[in-house]
């Protein structure tokens, strides 16, 4: 189902962010960010709120504009050209903190809207794909309901399925469990872990450190708009180099 493109150069990074800077007015939110993501790699970004981690992943699919530096996604450079932006967005799926499902459409219609209208798939084909993906996120029986009739955890799983329907190369997760009740976090994380095990390239902004330990190939800690520390989870959690990382981990792991 998940067709990871093998015909492309497996050694080239699928996402290449170099020397990216971004300002909101006078406020410098991203400072000299460099990040290379290899195909199939899972990256977890953490850091205090306001550190720029959401802004960074939102720059990757051009939901936010960066003012300096280059972002290359799967060989396409992100410029202001709308064509380029739309090409990149089709390659990159995104899951939001607030789910952002379309409330006027059923779960199935949410999943088939973009495949039908953007990729010009025929309806039957698109619905087949969507049902298979809903099966994978374990809610095929909700296909004909509206988002408002589902729990938060179910909605987020639909949002993941909706992104996967576009068959993306990379998935971005922007705090996918932060708006969920504790009892629903696990069902969403389980789906994400499964996705990771199938080889999807993932960048997750999350505070779920258990999840990070399980799936991350690389941890990134951001503070004050910069990447403070990055490395494999074992070193990151057990032996963080920077004092700020230690402090942060101490705060979120203490209870």
């Amino acid at each position, binding site marked *: 189902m998940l067709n990871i493109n093998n015909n492309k150069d497996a050694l080239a990074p699928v996402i290449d962010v170099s020397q990216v800077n971004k300002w909101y007015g006078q406020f410098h939110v991203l400072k000299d960010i460099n990040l290379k993501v290899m195909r199939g790699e899972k990256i977890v970004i953490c850091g205090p709120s306001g550190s720029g981690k959401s802004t960074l992943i939102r720059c990757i699919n051009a939901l936010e504009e960066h003012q300096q530096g280059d972002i290359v996604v799967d060989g396409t450079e992100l410029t202001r050209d709308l064509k380029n932006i739309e090409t990149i967005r089709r390659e990159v799926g995104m899951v939001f903190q607030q789910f952002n499902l379309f409330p006027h459409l059923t779960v199935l219609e949410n999943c088939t809207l973009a495949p039908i209208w953007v990729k010009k798939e025929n309806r039957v084909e698109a619905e087949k794909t969507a049902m298979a993906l809903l099966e994978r996120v374990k809610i095929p029986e909700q296909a004909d309901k509206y988002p408002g*009739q589902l729990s938060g955890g179910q909605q987020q799983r639909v949002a993941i399925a909706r992104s996967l329907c576009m068959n993306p190369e990379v998935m971005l997760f922007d705090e996918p469990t932060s708006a969920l009740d504790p009892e629903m976090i696990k069902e969403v994380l389980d789906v994400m872990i499964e996705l990771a095990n199938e080889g999807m390239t993932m960048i997750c902004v999350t505070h779920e450190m258990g999840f990070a330990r399980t799936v991350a190939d690389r941890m990134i800690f951001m503070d004050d708009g910069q990447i403070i520390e990055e490395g494999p989870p074992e070193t990151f959690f057990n032996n963080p180099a920077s004092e700020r990382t230690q402090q942060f981990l101490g705060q979120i792991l203490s209870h």
Partner: protein
Amino acid sequence: MQKEMIEARTPPIMTVGALAWIKGNLFNTATNCLVTLVIAYGLFALIPPLIQWAFIEAVWTGESSADCTADGACWAFVNARLDQFIYGFYPPEHTWRVDIFFVQLAVVLAWLMIPAIPGKKYGLVYGLVAMPITSWIVLSGGMLGLTPVDTHDWGGLMVTLVLAMYGMLASLPIGVLLALGRRSEMPVVRTFCTVYIELWRGVPLITVLFMASVMLPLFVPEEIVFDKLIRAMIGMVMFQSAYMAEVVRGGLQAIPKGQQEACDSLGMGYWKSMLLVVLPQAVRMVIPGIVNTFIALFKDTSLVLIIGLFDLLSIVQAGLNDPVWLGTSTEGYIFAALVFWIFCFGMSRYSQSLENKRQEH
């Protein structure tokens, strides 16, 4: 501590029944008793004489106001003039063409409003595209072997409905475009739409109609000046679409930013995300406002009387000047008001049913 889970129980029996309601709501305090009694007396004093006048003593048929009595309504006037009220001066041998227009309108409305009738999509296309075109051809003629009927001869209810229908059909899409334009990131588009909206909203409709009928011919060469009815119609559409734009903009502003971002992240371009995601939600949200504007538009059609077009109200008024029917103005105005009210109330009810449907999910 609670040992077992509490079973769900039925609610306590309430004091129900008509008598309990009356006691609880109308006669619960001394002031309310007094108010109830005064209102009851008022109704008692008003309603029986009204029924007496409008129905029991009323005269339904007759040749002139001489046939009517002083104690009852003279519906004979409305009855005798009904054809003119409906068709204006449309040639009597061609009024079947107007009937086709009415029937088409009724079919579309029934198609869209009655849930049991299938194929709403086709109904919508028929109502929005096919019907306006065929109706215009059938009404004005000059094609398909139909005798041309000049719009000077149109009048009465048909003009009201023609103006209202084309006005609504055109002002909603134009209003939507203006609303989108006013929120656009392109400065030229945004400025143009803002200026347009503020300009037209700041001018009384009567002025617009005067401009369309009197001023325009002064500035534009005679060959280009088209039909007065069409000019009035364009003026009304320009005016109402500015109001419509602001109503729709209210809806657009209520849609969370995340919806647009979700569309963006799926690679949907501007028009796709607007047409498939944002507008369907925004328009549903402002149905009451849209219908409110429609109702205003429907009643505003009566303003065309000042530029010499005969809509329902002006043709009733013209009939009142007939010496044969002197003294029937009350009946004439009541009739016109009733017809307007029926249409407006219908629209209001339809809007409520749409809202209820929206709340189901």
